[in-house]
């Protein structure tokens, strides 16, 4: 109950900030930046894999949001609107960096490959006990980077940032079934790849 009220209060505060910012209050916009900069940076890092690019994305996304505030309808949350801008900026960076024809959210999604479980050993001991914080972080980063942009973007928005399936769909201009199917495959692929590290006790490659 309390958390519901708290959430409602936060949403009201956010709406107030957005209105003030729209009326030209830069300080109010600064508050919005502070609310969401961490999330935007994380999303940008996950998509671009590049620190410099991710920081650029944060700047450009907030600037774009500010200059286009009139276009924000208010029927979606400011956050999902902002994330949508950030995801597009990040994909653009990725395209430039790869210097390739297309990096899109439709890439590689038709293949079934890598979704069928092969590793079916349980993870024990707990991965968090198996590795130190830094080492675990490196494994997690490397593993998620191996996923196609289409998959890791859905996973990051839905499972890391906690957007709902509907919000993720809206943010990425995908249908709800498309989000669900990508999410399933992203989760299974990550699980499979992490298993190679976390089953270490059983397969015993000697490193740990």
């Amino acid at each position, binding site marked *: 109950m309390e958390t519901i009220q708290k959430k409602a209060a936060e949403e009201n505060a956010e709406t107030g900030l957005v209105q003030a910012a729209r009326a030209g209050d830069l300080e109010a916009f600064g508050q919005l930046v502070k609310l969401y900069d961490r999330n935007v940076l994380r999303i940008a890092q996950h998509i671009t894999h590049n620190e410099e690019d991710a920081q650029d994305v944060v700047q450009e996304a907030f600037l774009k949001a500010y*200059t286009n505030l009139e276009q924000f309808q208010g029927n979606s949350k400011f956050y999902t609107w902002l994330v949508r801008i950030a995801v597009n900026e990040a994909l653009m960076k990725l395209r430039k960096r790869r210097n390739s024809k297309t990096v899109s959210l439709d890439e590689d999604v038709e293949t079934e490959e890598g979704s069928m479980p092969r590793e079916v050993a349980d*993870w024990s001991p707990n991965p968090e006990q198996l590795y130190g914080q830094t080492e675990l972080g490196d494994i997690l980063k490397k593993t*998620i980077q191996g996923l196609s942009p289409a998959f890791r973007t859905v996973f990051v928005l839905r499972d890391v940032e*906690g957007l709902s399936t509907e919000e993720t769909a809206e943010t990425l201009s995908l249908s709800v079934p498309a989000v669900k199917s990508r999410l399933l495959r992203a989760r299974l692929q990550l699980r499979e790849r992490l298993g190679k590290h976390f089953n270490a006790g059983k397969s015993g490659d000697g490193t740990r």
Partner: protein
Amino acid sequence: MKCTEFLKELTEYLDGTADAALREELDEHMHWCHECKVVLNTTKKTIEIYRDNKLYELPERLRVKLHEAILLKCKASKRGQPSE
């Protein structure tokens, strides 16, 4: 229920969006299929581990720098001009 069918519904199960009947079928399947149970548990753990270990934290010094840069750019933008 076959294992492939179980896998298809994994996300519904994990997200708590499976209806009671489907949930029962999935539980029933896991009761005898150890492999699917492991896949479910380790997939759940995969989600938790990414959610709990927030990667890419933003250091405070960099954060301040980014804020300044963003607000400067906003101010310099057309919208930021007082004449508008």
